């Protein structure tokens, strides 16, 4: 039990996907302008990452690995199959959001379908396989990573409001100053380094 809790804490704080692994920077910068939009993105990411982690683990375990039903090593198919599954989930989320929250759909724009190619989602799936987690651990790790992403995104959205009202030199306006801020935020998160040895 303790192991799983530590796993989540580690994924949220110590090995935060955005701030220490630098994965998923695209939506991190893209949808951090308004809090409601960012929250919508967080919900979408949590759903996709958690579900994809579980499904991908099952596929990997029972179809691709030598111990699976085919009795052959098909792990070279990993990337393509994972993306296929993730894409299907993203499509599904997109449909739901478009149907029930057109405003959010419009606000998220291109960043919603882009979750498909979001390296954070694929990253969590690949890491799950690499680290040899069991199904529960993989799902929790997916959830923890998504929660860490959400935490970073929400903090950053708050900061973004302040930055948007700041007055940088012309060359640093927009994404440049946002990236600088993200860098400083990861400096701050260095404080969690070696908090949990995993």
């Amino acid at each position, binding site marked *: 039990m303790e192991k799983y809790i530590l796993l989540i804490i580690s994924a949220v704080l110590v090995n935060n996907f955005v701030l220490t692994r630098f994965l998923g920077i695209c939506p991190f910068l893209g949808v951090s302008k308004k809090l409601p939009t960012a929250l919508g993105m967080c919900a979408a990411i949590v759903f996709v990452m958690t579900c994809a982690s579980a499904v991908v683990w099952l596929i990997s375990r029972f179809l691709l690995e030598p111990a699976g039903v085919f009795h052959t090593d098909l792990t070279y198919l990993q990337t393509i199959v994972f993306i*296929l599954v993730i894409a299907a989930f993203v499509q599904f989320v997109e449909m*739901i959001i478009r149907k029930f929250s057109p405003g959010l759909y419009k606000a998220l724009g291109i960043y919603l379908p882009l979750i498909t190619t979001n390296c954070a989602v694929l990253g969590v799936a690949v890491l799950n396989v690499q680290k040899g987690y069991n199904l529960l651990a993989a799902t929790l790790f997916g959830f923890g990573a998504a929660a860490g992403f959400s935490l970073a995104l929400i903090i950053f959205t708050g900061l973004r409001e302040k930055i948007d009202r700041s007055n940088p030199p012309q060359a640093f306006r927009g994404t440049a100053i946002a990236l600088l801020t993200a860098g400083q935020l990861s400096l701050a998160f260095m404080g969690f380094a070696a908090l949990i040895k995993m």
Partner: protein
Amino acid sequence: MPFDIIDPTIIMGGVGLSCGILLGVAARFLTVTVNPRIEALTALLPGVNCGACGLPGCSEYARALIMHGAKVNLCKPGGPKTMRQIAVFLGVEPVTMERQVALVLCGGDDKTAIRKFCYNGIADCAAAALVGGGDKACGYGCLGLGSCARICPTEAIEITHARLAVIHPELCIGCGQCVKACPKKIIQLVPESRTIHVLCRSKDRGNVVKKNCSIGCIGCTLCTKAAGNAIKMEGALAVVDYTQPLENEEAITKCPQHTIIKRSGRKEVPA
């Protein structure tokens, strides 16, 4: 050996098929219809999103045209050309419209108009107008703090060093944003073919105007005689009636205050 091909094929196919089926089922319940005509019409509009049509942006105007039958001549930046394109797209009769440009009806800058106090506050006309009506002694003068220039989508308005807003007609698209932004209400849309203008809006009596500004209209009525119908008196102020033709440049030379000027409109209409 052939299994090497078959297994991955089965997997990819199987996974893909099941995802496809699931999404297909989901799509049955979650479809949203859109009107492709709106997007096509949006593409015809200039995309300045200036709001001159009274709607928040070009795509909203396109929607209003298709869904609610809005008028086809509302897009001022696009001018007659866009109006014709819209009319063709919608299959309706084109209407006549003349392109208009904005004009600041004040010539009183720091060299010619006096100030009644030193304004200390936000560098914005609307804010300055809340402090004693602005720092120009003339209550109808341009405050020169650039509210119009900041809102202009094409940066056609220049604030001179002597604090006066001047609109460059060759850049102006006639969207009318500055007209709304000016707290003194001294910006007006005029037909772009017109060249002779009275640059004053002061309703004050002549002696008051003279005290406040060296180039304000003092209501001497000399210009009205020279210009016929095209310049009329409104109280102590000469006003150009843009519905009447005015070619006679005598009015400019007659004006003792040099309030009347000749300014060219935009020459060519951009495509």
